């Protein structure tokens, strides 16, 4: 049986805690063969999650309110819902399709909430105007499942202050 757990000095990674996959020697295996590696800056920890039949246009708190603190940054949220895929609309006979997205299942995230969001842009120049961020009106979501990871995912938060320390 291979060495699976190391609390000590690994040749690649230095001092720390390491756990390898089955059949991989934790002392010498490639990093991709490690289940846990304390030398990496961010581990894939799930902080919170949920399963809701419907989320209205007012959005949903992604934490169990009263029992979990905000992470202090907007987290990476992975979600799935009843409908995904391409959408194209507002067709114009002179110019063809005006709005198109490769993914209709858009969500807007804040420190503590997720809200379904429609795509929108105000002109044919594809979001060139100041403030035209492509985010349209809030939309309802059905049959949603999500996981909030302990990873920052927002402008201003994806810095060494949140990733390196």
């Amino acid at each position, binding site marked *: 049986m291979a060495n699976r757990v190391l609390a000590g000095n690994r040749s690649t990674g230095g001092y*720390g*805690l390491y756990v390898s996959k089955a059949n991989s020697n934790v002392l010498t295996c490639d990093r991709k063969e490690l289940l846990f590696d304390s030398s990496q800056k961010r581990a894939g*920890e799930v902080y919170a*999650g949920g399963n809701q039949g419907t989320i209205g246009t007012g959005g949903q708190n992604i934490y169990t309110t009263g029992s979990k603190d905000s992470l202090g940054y907007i987290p990476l949220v992975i979600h799935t819902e009843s409908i995904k*895929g391409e959408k194209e609309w507002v067709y114009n006979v002179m110019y063809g*399709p005006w709005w198109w997205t490769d993914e209709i299942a858009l969500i807007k995230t804040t420190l503590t909430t997720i809200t379904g969001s429609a795509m929108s842009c105000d002109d044919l120049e594809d979001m060139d105007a100041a403030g035209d961020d492509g985010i349209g009106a809030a939309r309802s979501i059905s049959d949603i499942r999500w996981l909030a990871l302990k990873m920052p995912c927002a402008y201003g938060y994806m810095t060494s202050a949140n990733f390196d*320390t």
Partner: protein
Amino acid sequence: MANRVLIGNRATGGYGLYVSRLTSDVLDCANDKLMFNTNSGESGSSFFSAGHFQIVPISGGTGSNAPVVSSEEVVTTSADNTVSYQGIASTKVMTWASKATAYGNDSWSDDNFYGFGTPGSTSVTLSNNGVQTSITVRVVAINMLDTTSLF
């Protein structure tokens, strides 16, 4: 260099195994500075993690069989595919997918939607709800850890 690994009694959390992030002292850092924590019964400001992010293999992943982590599915219009995965997370699964190619924005393509049914312990239904003759999507299954409304 900061203390990174503690097997023992931490001032906040009690006895357990703790690993801190790179420059944080595992003995007294805030909980969000921990990469790993065996503490249980977490609540409020001491909450650390609901669990590890984990992909559920489509096949393999047991014994010496390498895991297959995703599946490419071709679904014809108004049809359903059954996407199978290993039964390691019971029905606590979130299936996620992305289209292999976009239909394109140079012609009127209308709605090319697809969607999943409620995941079972080893499979889920994937439906083509759009107008394309067929769609090709890449599917992964993720361990949800829990299926309560909020966790």
